[in-house]
C-alpha cells in the first residue's frame, strides 16, 4: 500500500484566531470515504504577522503533496509569496487556493500566480475533497466542478458547483475534532448567506438564499464550544445574529446554562434596527457582551449606491436598547463609499459619537472581489488598488489626499472618544 498523500491546510489569521474555513475543509475531507486512508492532513493555523519566508519554512518541513490555503484580502499578499517559495522549492506540490479573495476572480488569480495550480470557486468543502480524490487517484482534476485549474498551458473553469442543500451534510469542525475551540477565538456558524445585499460586502459570499444548519447541529456545537475547558468567550460569524426573533430566542435558550456559568459571546453582528428592549433582553440571556453593527454610512447617496437600508431613529433606538441592557456596541463606518463626500463620513462619525455606543470604528473601503462594487467600480468611478487588500485610492467625491486625511482625523477622534474612565 502506498503512503497517503500529504495535504497541508494553511491559514494566516488575525492573532488569537484559528480558521473555521480550514476546519470545515478538513472535517469534510476526513469524513469522505473516497479519501479514507489516501490522504493525511496537517493544519497550520498561523498569524498574519509571521514572515512569509518562515511560513514557507513550516510548510516545506511537512513535505506536502498538496497545499490548500484559505485566502482573504488581508493575507493574500503574504499567501502569494508563500506560494512562490513553496513552488520553487517543491514544484511537485499542488497548491490550491480558496476563499473570498480568490474564488470570485479565480482565473485571474491563476493567470497572475504561476505557482498556484487550482482555485476553488465558492463553497469549498465538497469541491476540495473531490479535487483531493482526483489528485490522489486519476489526476483528472479538471473534471471537478467548482474549480479554476491549469490544464496544460490553459486555464479552465469547470462548471459551477451547486450549493450544499443540507448544511448538516458538512461535518462540524468542532464536533469532529478537526478544530479545537480556544477562548475568545472560537467562532460558530449557524447559517450561510446574508439577508442583506450591501454592495461593498462579500459576507453572503454570493450564496444568495439563506441555508441554516439544523437546530440539533447548532445546539450540539454550542454545547461543545461553550463547555470546552478554558473557553469563557466565543462568537458567531453569522452576518446577522438576530436573523429572526424566534431564532434569537432559541439561541438564547441553548446558551442559558452556559451564561449562568459566566460564558459570554463577543463581537456578535446584529441588525441593530430590529433591536428593541425585548430583543436586547434576549441578547443578554444569550450571553452577548458586545455587538458589532453599522451604520457604515449615513449618506443617502452612498446608502443608495450600496443598496443598504438605514433608518436613523430605529438605529439610534437600537443602540439605546443595547446601552440600557449593558451590552457594548461597536458602530462601524466606512470612508470612501461611492456617493459619500468626506463630510458625509464626518457626519456619520458625529452621528455615532452622539449615540455614545461604546466603540466607534472606521475603516477605509476595500473593493472586494465578488462584490457589486468590484463589478461596478468603473461605473462608480472608484479608483482602487487591484492588488489585495484592494483599498480605495480615490472616488469622484473624495480625493486621495482627503481620504488619507479622513483616516487620520477619524483615528484621532476615536482616540479621544475611547479615552474615558
Amino acid at each position, binding site marked *: 500500500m502506498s503512503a497517503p498523500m500529504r495535504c497541508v491546510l494553511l491559514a494566516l489569521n488575525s492573532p488569537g484566531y484559528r480558521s473555521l474555513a480550514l476546519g470545515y475543509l478538513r472535517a469534510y475531507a476526513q469524513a469522505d470515504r473516497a479519501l479514507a486512508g489516501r490522504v493525511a492532513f496537517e493544519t497550520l493555523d498561523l498569524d498574519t504577522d509571521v514572515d512569509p519566508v518562515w511560513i514557507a519554512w513550516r510548510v516545506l518541513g511537512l513535505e506536502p503533496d498538496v497545499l490548500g490555503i484559505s485566502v482573504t484580502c488581508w493575507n493574500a499578499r503574504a499567501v502569494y509569496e508563500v506560494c512562490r517559495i513553496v513552488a520553487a522549492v517543491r514544484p511537485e506540490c499542488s497548491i490550491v487556493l480558496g476563499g473570498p479573495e480568490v474564488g470570485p476572480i479565480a482565473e485571474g488569480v491563476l493567470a497572475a500566480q504561476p505557482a498556484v495550480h487550482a482555485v476553488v470557486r465558492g463553497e469549498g468543502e465538497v469541491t476540495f475533497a473531490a479535487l483531493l480524490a482526483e489528485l490522489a487517484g486519476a489526476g483528472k482534476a479538471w473534471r471537478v466542478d467548482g474549480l479554476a485549474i491549469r490544464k496544460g498551458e490553459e486555464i479552465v473553469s469547470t462548471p459551477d458547483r451547486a450549493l450544499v442543500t443540507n448544511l448538516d451534510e458538512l461535518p462540524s469542525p468542532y464536533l469532529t475534532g478537526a478544530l479545537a475551540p480556544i477562548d475568545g477565538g472560537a467562532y460558530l456558524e449557524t447559517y450561510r448567506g446574508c439577508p442583506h445585499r450591501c454592495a461593498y460586502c462579500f459576507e453572503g459570499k454570493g450564496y444568495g438564499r439563506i441555508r441554516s444548519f439544523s437546530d440539533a447541529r447548532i445546539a450540539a456545537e454550542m454545547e461543545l464550544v461553550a463547555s470546552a475547558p478554558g473557553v469563557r468567550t466565543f462568537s458567531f460569524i453569522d452576518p446577522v445574529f438576530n436573523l429572526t426573533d424566534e431564532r434569537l430566542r432559541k439561541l438564547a435558550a441553548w446558551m442559558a446554562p452556559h451564561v449562568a456559568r459566566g460564558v459570554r459571546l463577543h463581537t456578535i453582528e446584529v441588525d441593530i434596527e430590529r433591536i428593541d428592549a425585548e430583543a436586547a433582553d434576549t441578547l443578554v440571556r444569550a450571553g452577548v457582551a458586545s455587538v458589532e453593527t453599522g451604520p457604515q454610512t*449615513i*449618506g*443617502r*447617496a452612498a*446608502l443608495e449606491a450600496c443598496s443598504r437600508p438605514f433608518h*436613523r431613529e430605529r438605529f439610534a433606538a437600537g443602540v439605546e436598547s443595547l446601552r440600557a441592557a449593558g451590552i457594548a456596541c461597536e458602530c462601524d463606518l466606512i470612508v470612501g463609499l461611492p456617493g459619500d*463626500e*468626506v*463630510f*458625509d463620513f*464626518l*457626519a*456619520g*462619525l*458625529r*452621528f455615532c*459619537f*452622539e*449615540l*455614545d455606543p461604546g466603540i466607534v470604528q472606521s475603516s477605509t473601503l476595500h473593493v472586494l472581489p465578488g462584490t457589486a462594487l468590484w463589478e461596478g467600480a468603473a461605473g462608480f468611478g472608484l479608483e482602487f488598488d487591484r492588488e489585495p487588500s484592494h483599498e480605495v485610492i480615490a472616488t469622484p467625491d473624495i480625493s486621495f*489626499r*482627503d481620504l*488619507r*486625511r*479622513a483616516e*487620520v*482625523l477619524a*483615528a*484621532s*477622534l476615536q*482616540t*479621544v*472618544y*475611547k*479615552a*474615558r*474612565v
Partner: protein
Amino acid sequence: MIRFAEVMLGSGGPARCVRCHGPREDATYLPAAKLATSLRETCGSWEGRPGPNVMLAGPEPFGHPELPRVVGAAMAAGCARLGLDTDGAALQSRQNAAGALSAGVRHLRVRILAGAPGSHDALAGAPGALDAAVAGLRAFREAADAASASTSIAVLVTVCRHNVHDLPGAVALAVECGADRVELHLDDPGLGLASSAAWIRAACDTGVVNGVWVEVDGMPFCAMPGYELHLSDVLRARTGAKSAACGACALDAVCAGCAPLASADQLAELAPVANGERLAAGIARARAGEATAE
C-alpha cells in the same frame, strides 16, 4: 465633535509667547471646594453625548495646591473624560504621571511653542521648558501603557509671527513624542494669513503623513484652500472675526473668519470663496451629523 467644557482653575493663563505677550502672569488658583461646585454644575447640566467631558484649564494645573481633590471632584461629579491643560513639566515625575492617570485623567493638552528647545524656551521665557514638556508627555504615555489605559494626548501650539515658521518642526516633535494630535491656535493679530498659510499647510502635511491629525483654529477657509478638513470650523462652530467681504462668501454660514482679536490687516486678507456652495453644505452636514439632503 467630542466636546469638552473648560473649567478654569484660576487666573493667570498658560504659557504663551513672551515676545508677543510679555512675561507670564502669576497664577492664582480657586479653592478646590469652589471648583468642585463648578464641576458638579458643569457635569450635572451636561447635555448630549458623549460626556460629560471636562478640560481643567487656565493656569498650570500642577501648580494647584489641591489638584488631587479637584480631579477627585470631577470624577465624583460624573465626568466621563477628564483632561489637563498643562505645560507638561510636572509629569516628568513618574509619581505625578501615574497619579494623574489613576485618579482618572485620560486627556492631556500639552502646550509647546516650537519644536526645538532653543526656540521654545526663548519664546516661553523658561530655560529647559521644552525638554521638561517632552519628558512629561513621554512619562504620561509610559504610565498609560503600563496601566493599559486609553488616553489621548494633544499638543497645542499657539501660533504667532515668532513661531509660525517652526510649525512643521513642532508637529514633528509631537509625532516623535507619541502625541495623538496637534492643535494650532492662531493667536497673533500681526500674523499675515497668506504668509503663514504655507507653514500651516506644511505642518498639516507633516502630521498626516505621520498619522497624527493637525487641527487649525482661527484660520478662515479662504486662506487654506485644499486644507479645509484641517480647520476647526469643520467640526464645530467657533467665535471669530469677519469682514464685510465675508457676506459674499458661500462659506459665510460655516466660517468664523479669523481669530477673535484679528487685526485690520488680517481682515483685509479675507476674500469670498468662489463656488463654495457644495463645500458649505458638506460642512453643515458634518457639524449637524446629518445625511445628505435629498
